[in-house]
């Protein structure tokens, strides 16, 4: 059933609507990447856009991430507003030189003479049995780099709303679309959806523990929160939304209310975003803590192909529930 003024939409359709809106609003905006044109995008995000906007603005590229990300940087420096699609975060490693040594540094090295208003969209994460070369969550590596802004839309609203402010930003912005979210469906208001790209969001208010997460693990965190609430433990769920620069204030304010934190991150634990958040909580809220910060991350293995092993490697709600119950001193 559709509520008046809203439409049922998938995450994939919300992303497409955002691209379409940006293309209509600004002639400088164009989309390029592997198979984004005739094939409609490896994940179907750009389906139909070639017919509507033509091959000049919906550009299929050769299989060379370094070349087309570099081209995007040049186009952005030249005054365009490119949206570059990289099929998966694993493949962006081929373009890491362009992202790190050019996109992130040119503004700094040119003394502010050049801006790089580039948006790179890429799929991240596991859960779809596409094995270890297509499934990793390397957001944490990229979040290490000053000069980049990283976004992780985990809701329909963010999928629909984050592109416009990302294109308006004078700096390179990376948008991570978790592969397990493309088919997520729900209601979204018709017309413009305005969101900021500065703040984390509290997706569920609670008083006993803060679950900090982002992107593809938000549904797992919310499911765990529901299970915990049924057992009398009331978790707050913080969706980071912006992975760089991190919104410390929202996380710290939440931990100051709940006094306990569990970070849920599909990245590997060692040297992860989860590690960074845990450290910041310790730095800024040590005297608020009633228990050590806990982390639930992916198993430190290349993502397995068999479904049961892949699921076992990923952060699952029962593990989150067990960690929370351990922190609050409840019987596990």
């Amino acid at each position, binding site marked *: 059933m559709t509520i008046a003024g809203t439409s049922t939409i998938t995450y994939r359709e919300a992303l497409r609507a955002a691209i379409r809106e940006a293309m209509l609003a600004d002639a400088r905006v164009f989309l390029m990447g592997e198979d984004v044109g005739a094939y409609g995008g490896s994940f179907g995000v750009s389906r139909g856009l070639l017919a509507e906007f033509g091959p000049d603005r919906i550009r299929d590229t050769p299989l060379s991430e370094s070349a087309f990300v570099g081209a995007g940087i040049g186009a952005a420096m030249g005054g365009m507003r490119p949206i570059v699609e990289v099929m998966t975060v694993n493949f962006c490693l081929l373009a890491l030189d362009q992202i790190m040594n050019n996109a992130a540094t040119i503004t700094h090295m040119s003394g502010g003479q050049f801006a790089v208003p580039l948006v790179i969209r890429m799929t991240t994460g596991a859960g779809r049995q596409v094995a270890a070369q297509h499934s990793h969550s390397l957001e944490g590596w990229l979040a290490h780099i000053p000069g980049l802004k990283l976004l992780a839309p985990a809701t329909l609203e963010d999928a629909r709303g984050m592109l416009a402010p990302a294109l308006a930003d004078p700096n390179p912005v990376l948008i991570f679309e978790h592969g397990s979210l493309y088919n997520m469906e729900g209601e979204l208001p018709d017309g413009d959806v305005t969101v900021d790209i500065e703040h984390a969001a509290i997706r569920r208010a609670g008083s006993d523990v803060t679950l900090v997460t982002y992107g593809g693990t938000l549904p797992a965190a919310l499911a765990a929160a529901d299970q915990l609430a049924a057992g*009398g433990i009331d978790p707050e769920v913080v969706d980071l939304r912006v992975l760089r620069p991190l919104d410390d204030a929202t996380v710290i304010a939440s931990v100051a209310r709940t006094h306990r934190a569990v970070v849920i991150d599909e990245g590997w634990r060692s040297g992860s975003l989860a590690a960074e958040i845990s450290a910041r909580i310790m730095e800024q809220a040590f005297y608020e803590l*009633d*228990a050590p910060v806990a982390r639930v991350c992916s198993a430190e293995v290349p993502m397995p192909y068999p479904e049961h092993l892949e699921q076992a490697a990923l952060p699952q709600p029962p593990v989150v529930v067990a960690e929370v119950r351990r922190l609050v001193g409840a019987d596990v």
Partner: protein
Amino acid sequence: MPSLGADMEFGTVLEWLVKPGDAVKRGDIVAIVDTSKAEIEVEIFEDGVIGKLLVPVGERVPVGTVLATILPAGTNGAKAAVPTPAAPPTPARAEAPSAPPEPRPPMRAPPPSPMPLRPVHDEHPVRVSPLARRTAEQLGVDLATVAGSGPQGAITRADVEAAAPRPVVRHRQPPRGAQPDRQAAMRDAIAALMARSKREVPHYYLELQIDMTRALAWLHEENLQQSLQERLLPSVLLLSAAAKAVKAMPELNGFWIDGAFRAADRVHLGVAISLRGGGLIAPALHDADRLSLDQLMAGVRDLVQRARIGRLRSSEMSDPTITVTNLGERGVDLVHGVIYPPQVALVGFGAVRERPWAADGMLGVRPIVTATLAADHRASDGHAGGRFLTLIEHRLQRPEEL
């Protein structure tokens, strides 16, 4: 917070009957505690002077929480009352403007410590969460008196607040669906204990039909000489026979704890009492094997009355060494009971009914009761159980000795 029965995990202090400085003797009732089952009077087990009341009225704390401190007898009560709940320390900065800074005394080495200083790397460090440490400072709680419930036994804020001299009021919504419903709580407690019993205790069951002709005839004669209030009920004969019989069967009287049987040296007979409005409680009749029938009768009346208004004593709740259930009062012929862990035996009596009975080659009609035994096979064997039921039968054939 004493464990007032194997099924108790939390208790709430309803009332303190003593205050800091009061002298107390072993057996005095010092507090009233609400378990999920009843209001229980908590006795004290040492002579002394009450030091500090650590858990305020209304606070629900886990079993094992220190409720109060007691100082050795003879301590000056007034002094012993220990500095009244320390006021939260005033921040040093607030004091500064009030007086001109005093000239700093020359730096001196600290005086030798009267006690050996605790090594930095303690073998078993007390773990305190940063928040708990801060809260303890604010509330003036001595962390040494607090037991930890957090990860790795760490003291958490909740532990500190539970130990605070005054109740801590924090605005906080109660967990959803957690209505304080004693009826439901009792059901949960019974469910947990009975499930544990059936899960852990290998029960074996025996039954014996006992001719009550002599016992009832004797009772009839006795009651003719008693006033109406003092008359004995047949169930008292059954309780007395069970208590005296189990005295001779130590393997049925005691507790199975940590994988071993511990015999009790006294017989505290648990009496199963069903409560109005549902639920069940089985408090102890202390030293039931040594009570006269009149004393037993008075004891049962008192227990039932207090159980039903919810006022039992802590020792009555935790002491039973064997339990008797008399479902005959409900008209059933026999009961195969579920043992109350950590006890190892439960005796059941059905209704006394007239039945055809063959004795000495003759068929007659006799009042018969079926006695049953549910016993823990880890602690005893069927041979012992059978001997126990036979002893009950023998006792009931000599009612004048009960």
